[in-house]
């Protein structure tokens, strides 16, 4: 089944749409899917031209395509457990929250909290991701726990905050404090970043560009060779964060 959701023109295009019901499994149901447009609950048809082609008996046979003005649509793919979502343009915050399986592909940029508290599955963002990419929620001790988030462009600040499992690959640069409070999993930063892995307690982070404002509380632990994007790099290896009795591994290109 292929579901195409094309946004209708909106009188107030800056008002966010909260659309956690846009997940493949919901299109197997007969009942109406609703979304919030500001403080009003609306039917999906109110805000999108909906076309559905072909049958499906299970959610993994469902592909949802979003096109149009999609940059202010939040929570697409929240709790998704199968199937595929393709976003032709930009996507709003919280795309793929709690996702446990399936795939999301974003052709444009993703706003903040992409893949928040993700458990499994795969997110590919071909543009840039906002702040808190693959991170957690306020007050929780664990962020992303499994799956893969891959960003072809740059990511913002606090990338992979509280990462506990799974893999996060940012091919471009990260902002401030990627891998902050990290406790498991793997974070790969292809480009530059600032203050990686502050307060980390576990997991592995590799920075293949420059690490600015490197924190003083990481203990040097020799160097080793690592492969990234088909090339081998010599990496200086550190253990930390010592300030937090941490046992994480941070590698920075020598």
């Amino acid at each position, binding site marked *: 089944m292929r579901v195409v959701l094309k946004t209708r023109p909106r009188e107030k295009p800056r008002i966010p749409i909260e659309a956690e019901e846009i997940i493949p499994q919901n299109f197997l149901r007969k009942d109406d899917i609703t979304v919030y447009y500001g403080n009003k609950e609306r039917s999906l048809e109110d805000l999108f031209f909906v076309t559905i082609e072909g049958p499906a008996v299970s959610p993994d046979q469902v592909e949802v395509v979003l096109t149009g003005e999609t940059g202010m649509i939040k929570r697409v793919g929240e709790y998704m457990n199968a199937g595929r979502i393709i976003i032709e343009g930009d996507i709003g915050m919280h795309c793929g929250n709690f996702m446990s399986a399936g795939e999301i592909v974003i052709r444009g940029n993703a706003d*903040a*909290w992409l893949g928040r508290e993700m458990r499994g599955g795969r997110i590919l963002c071909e543009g840039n991701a*906002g702040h808190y990419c693959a991170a957690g929620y306020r007050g929780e001790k664990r962020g992303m726990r499994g799956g893969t988030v891959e960003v072809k462009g740059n990511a*913002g*600040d*606090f990338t992979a905050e509280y990462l506990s499992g799974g893999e996060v690959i940012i091919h471009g640069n990260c902002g401030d404090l990627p891998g902050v409070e990290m406790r498991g999993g793997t974070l790969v930063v292809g480009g530059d970043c600032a203050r990686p892995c502050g307060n980390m307690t576990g997991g592995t982070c590799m920075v293949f560009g420059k690490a600015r404002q490197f924190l003083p509380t990481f203990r040097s632990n020799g160097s080793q060779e690592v492969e990234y994007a088909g090339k081998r790099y010599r990496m200086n290896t550190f253990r930390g964060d010592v300030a937090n009795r941490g046992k994480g591994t941070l590698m920075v290109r020598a």
Partner: protein
Amino acid sequence: MNFLLNTGRTIRQGSSVERKNSATYREEASAVSMNPVDMFEMMVEQGDRVRVKSGSGEVVMWVRPDPGLGRGKVFVCLGPYANHLIGTETHGTGMPDFKSTPVSIEPTEEPVPSVAVLMRQCGGVPYEG
């Protein structure tokens, strides 16, 4: 010249905060404090007017010396003048960079605008009553 802009409370700002149309408030909120050596290099003196520009905007202020500031640092008390320069990026935390905005400063002869004029630049209609 390029500087790093810091903002914060001052007692004079606080004591005139409920009279934002007043000359006292305008004087305090539109003062940019600068290290005296930086002032010397820029050839400005206390009371001279400068144009302060950031990536987000620009505004005319007047200079006063503060030897407690390091070189390359300037301070403006919180208020609409400082905020004409501060961007809306919050890094996902809700909090703009009130403490560290890069600015450039050059002397000018233009007048320091009033709060009402600043707000008109923002699209408002000054209330002078």
